[in-house]
C-alpha cells in the first residue's frame, strides 16, 4: 500500500477503503472523475465500457431517479443503480 488517499489514475493498489465514493452515491449536480471500475461481473463491465465510463472520464450527475442520468462531455447516458455502484469515483 502506498498510503495515498487520492488514488492515482489506474492505480491497482488503491482500495475502496480510500476511495469509498461510487457513482451511485453521488448527488444530483455532483461532478466527479471516474477512478476505477469495480464491477464484479464481466457483463456489467462491458456495458460500462460501451457507455464510455472509463477511468479518467469526467462526469456530472443530472438525475438519480428513476435511473441515474450522467453527462459526460456532450454525451448523456442512463444507467441503473446496480451499474453505478460499480463505478468508483473521486471529486
Amino acid at each position, binding site marked *: 500500500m502506498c498510503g495515498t488517499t487520492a488514488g492515482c489514475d489506474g492505480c491497482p493498489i488503491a482500495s475502496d477503503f480510500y476511495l469509498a465514493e461510487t457513482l451511485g452515491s453521488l448527488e444530483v449536480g455532483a461532478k466527479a472523475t471516474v477512478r476505477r471500475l469495480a464491477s464484479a461481473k464481466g*457483463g*456489467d463491465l462491458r456495458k460500462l465500457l460501451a457507455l464510455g465510463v472509463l477511468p479518467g472520464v469526467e462526469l456530472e450527475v443530472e438525475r438519480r431517479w*428513476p*435511473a441515474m442520468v450522467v453527462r459526460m462531455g*456532450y454525451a448523456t447516458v*442512463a444507467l441503473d443503480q446496480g*451499474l453505478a455502484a460499480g463505478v468508483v469515483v473521486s471529486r
Partner: protein
Amino acid sequence: MPATTEQAPAGSWLLVGAPNVGKSALFGRLTGHYATVSNYPGTSVEVTTGERRTTGAAIRVTDSPGIYSLLAVTEEERVARRAALGDGATLVQVVDASHLDRALPLTLQLLSLGKPLVLACNYLDEARARGVVPDVGALAERLGIPVVGTVATTGEGVDALAEAAASARSPADGWGTPQPFAAVLDGFAEGGAERLEAELALCGDPELEPLLAARSSERWRAAVRLRDAQWPTAEAFAVALATARRRMALALLDGVVPDAPQVRRRHQALDRLFLSPWTGIPIVLLVLYLGFYKFVGQFGAQTLVDWIERVVFDRWLTPYATAGTRAVVPWAPVADLLVGPYGLFSLGVRYAVAIVLPIVASFFLVFALLEDSGYLPRLALLLDRGLKRIGLSGRAVIPLVLGFGCNTMATLVTRTLESRRERVIVTLLLALAIPCSAQLGVVLGILSVYPSAVAVWAGVLLGVFVVVGWLAAKLLPGEPPSFFLELPPLRRPLLRNVLLKTGTRVRWYFAEIFPLFLLASVILWVGDLTGALRWATALLVPVVRSIGLPDGAAPAFLYGFFRRDFGAAGLFDLARAGVLGPAALTTAAVTITLFVPCVAQFLVMRKERGLRTAVGVLVTATVVAFAVGGAVGWVLRNVGGWA
C-alpha cells in the same frame, strides 16, 4: 507493420458506428434507398444492403447495427462486429462530430485491422451550433485516413464522402494494439481480424473467448499466460486496454476539437419533463391517448377504414369486380375463389387493404415520430424500474412498443436485449398480451361503442401482462438484467424521414402478410367447398360456447389461426351485424387478443428462439387466452348492466 497500400476492392463499403450517429440516414443518402433510421439505439437489427449507382460500376453499401465498441454486449452488436471483421469491404465509420472523443477508440480498433477506413463526421450541423466543429483536415493527417464532415439529413458532404470511400486505401501507418498490451498478443500477426479477435477474447468476450479457448492454440495459451502474469483478471485487462485507447484518442484529438465551454443539452427543460416520473407518466398517458387511441384507434381504424371499405371497396371496386368476374367465369366455385365469401378479392384483398393497411400505416407513422424525436430512450428510462419487476430492463420498451405495431417485427427486435432470459420473457409477452396494431385498431373500433368495455379489455390485458411477466421472471432462471442506455439529444423529426420510414415499414409488413391473407382465403375457400370448414367450425363451437360466446363467433377464431388481425377483423363483421352484445364482445376481444400469435409470428419465434420455446409460448398463449376469456365472460354475465 505491414504498410500495405494496395487498392481496396472498391466494390463494397460497410457503414459502422455507434447508435444515433445518423448511420442509416447516411446509408439512405449513399444508396438512394432507405433503411429504417431512428433516434433510438437498436432499430437496424440486421445488416441492410443497398447499391450505389454512379457513373462507374455499382457499389454495394451495407449498413450495420449500432456498436459502441467491438467488445459486444448484445446479439445485434455481435452481428455488427462479424460484419466489420468479416469481408474485405472498405469501412466507413460514422461518428457524431460533437462526440469524437467517444468514437475514436473504436476508430483505433478498426485501424488495427489494416483495412481501408474512412471517417464520416456526421451531425456537423449540431457541432456547428455547439461551436465544436472538428478540424477534419488535421484529424485526417494524424490518422492517415480520409475524414469527411457530413450532414446526412440534408445531404451535405455525402458526395465528398463517397469520393473518399471510393479511393480509400489501407492505412499506411500501423495502428496496432498499444503497449504493453501488444506484447501479450505477439503470437498473432498484426493487421488482421485474427489478432483483434484474440484481443477481444483476452478481454473476456463471451463469444470469442470460448471459441479461442476451445481451439487452444499454442499462441493463445501463451497470450493468456502473459495476460495473467500482469493483470489479475480478464476484466482488469479489458479496462486497462480501453483506458489506454482512450488516452491515445484524447492525444490525437488535442488541437483538433476546440475547447468550447460545456454547453447544456438542447431542450434541457423539456427533457426534465420527460424524465421525471411526476410529469413523465402523465406525458406517457397523453402520448398513448393522442397517438394511439385517437390517431390509430379512431382516425386510422375508424375514419380511414370506413372510408376505404364503404366508399373505395363497396361503392367503387366490389360491384364491378363481382359483376365482372361472374360474367367472365361462369363456373360458380371458381368465381367464388375470387369474389365469393372467402374469395381472394372479397376477403383477402379487402381485409388486407381496407382494414389492416390504414391501421398499420397510422401506427408506424406515430412510432416513427416517437423514434425520430428521441422520445423512446426517455420512455425506456422512465419505465425501467417497473419493468425490472417482471424480469426486464428499460431496454425492453422498444420491442414491447413496436409490438403494438407488428408482433412479428418486434420479436425480431428482441435481439437488442442482452440475455436470453429477457428475450424469452419479451417473446412470450408479445405473443400473449400485446395486441398488434391491426388487432388493436379493430378491437378498439368494435368496443368504442361501449367505453366500459374498452376499460375492461385494457385492464384485463394489463393484468395478464403483469402477472405473466412476474411469473416468467420468477420461473425462468438467470440474473436480473441491468439497465444502460445512451440518451440521444431530443431532435425535431424531419417529415421526409418519418414518411420514408413509415413507407419502408408498411412495405415490409405488406410483403410479409399479403401472401398469408391470400393463402388464408384459399384455405378457407377449399374448406368451404369440401365441407371441412363447417366441420372445423363445429369443432370450435363448444370451445366458443365454453367462454360464453354465441356460435357465430367460431369462424372468427378460425380466421385467428391465420392472422391475429384476421380473426379480429372477423369479429368486426360480427359486431356490425349486431350478433354480439357488450359482454360477449368484450369476452371475444379479450380472448382473440390473448390467443395464439399469427403464423408469421410463430415462424419468427421458431427462428429466433428455437422450436421448443416457440411451442411453449404457443401452448401458454392458448391456455391463458381461453382461461382468462372464460373467466371474464363468466364475471361479465354475472354483473349487472352487461348483458
